[in-house]
């Protein structure tokens, strides 16, 4: 059975796309292009992206592409389903923690910009008009696609590959991944989680951790996972947590939410949300 694999950099991460079988050539190349396309639309570090425009124009109604509308809609839904533990409006807190540029350009020590915590926790105030194709953020607010963007991109690209005639595949954006169909050696897909490997099929997997994407601010080590209840980098959650869910966007938002959750509550919340959580 034909096996194709691509590794490249996008969305601040290493991306890996693997396809098994397939009836047409060029499908995997289209998938690579599609990842770059989504990065151009969603990155908050790309001045011309739709998300950058949305944040610059907070308070105004902004017409967006279908992809970006979907991103905002699902982020809002994840906020609702996790009881606010996943919150895409923490952008100003992320920036206040010093995460103001793409991580590969950030450096190990950054100065802390003035905190602007307006509209954090105001996800309910995001207005989405699907008929008009528009979104309005609350004035002063910001939308952070981190914590959902890579997972949703994995889902969208996987769907396009699956409808493009591929028999099985894996789209892995920096650890946030979707696998479906047959794996490279028949059966399912073997996904490495540190020292162990698990076999899965037709699921999304995401891992969040406080040991990566860390930097120093005023001599203090900080990381990118914001606790929406404090608007500060979380201190109560597990170091590393992997979530397996029906889709990658849900796995990623759940992992982000649980990364700011005290260990005792993780299992109960995961069960309530219908996902599997693995503390590492």
């Amino acid at each position, binding site marked *: 059975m034909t096996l194709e694999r691509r590794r490249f950099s996008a969305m601040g991460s290493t991306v890996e796309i693997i396809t098994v079988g397939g009836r047409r050539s060029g499908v995997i190349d289209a998938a690579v292009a599609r990842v770059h396309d989504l990065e151009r639309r969603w990155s908050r570090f790309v001045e011309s992206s739709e998300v950058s425009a949305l944040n610059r124009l907070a308070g105004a109604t902004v017409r967006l592409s279908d992809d970006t509308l979907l991103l905002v809609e699902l982020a809002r839904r994840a906020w609702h389903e996790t009881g606010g533990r996943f919150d895409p409006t923490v952008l100003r807190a992320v920036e206040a923690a010093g995460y103001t540029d793409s991580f590969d350009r950030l450096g190990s020590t950054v100065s802390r910009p003035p905190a602007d915590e307006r509209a954090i926790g105001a996800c309910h105030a995001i207005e989405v008009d699907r008929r008009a194709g528009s979104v309005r953020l609350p004035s002063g607010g910001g939308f952070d696609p981190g914590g959902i963007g890579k997972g949703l991109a994995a889902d969208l690209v996987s769907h396009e590959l699956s*409808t*493009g005639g591929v028999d099985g595949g894996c789209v892995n954006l920096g650890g946030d991944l979707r696998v479906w169909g047959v794996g490279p050696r028949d059966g399912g897909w073997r996904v490495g989680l540190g020292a162990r490997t698990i076999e899965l099929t037709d699921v999304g997997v995401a891992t969040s951790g406080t040991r990566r994407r860390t930097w120093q601010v005023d001599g203090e080590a900080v990381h990118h996972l914001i606790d929406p209840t404090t608007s500060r980098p979380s201190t109560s959650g597990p170091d590393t947590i992997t979530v397996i869910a*029906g889709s990658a966007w849900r796995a990623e938002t759940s992992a982000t939410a649980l990364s700011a959750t005290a260990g005792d509550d993780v299992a109960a919340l995961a069960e309530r949300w219908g*996902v599997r959580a693995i503390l590492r």
Partner: protein
Amino acid sequence: MSQPRHPALAARILAAGLSTAAVLGIVAVLARDSQRSARDDQDPVVEIRVDAVPDDELRSSLAEWLEGRPALTDDWVDVVDVPADTASEPS
């Protein structure tokens, strides 16, 4: 049916070979000023807009895909002792 919004969708659908699953409209507006005078220094304006509207089947397929499997249970996760095909680590 909502109005289409961006050309990438059309490219995507075409790349996926879903010709029967999309309604493709190509609107090419060629504005030529046949009366253009020597004093007119404006080039002819050509605007091409490619719109695509996925049909209900494709919309339904994507919605189902984004929902994924229902609640996961333990028997859906098997620990195996073989090399991994891919890995999930914090990024």
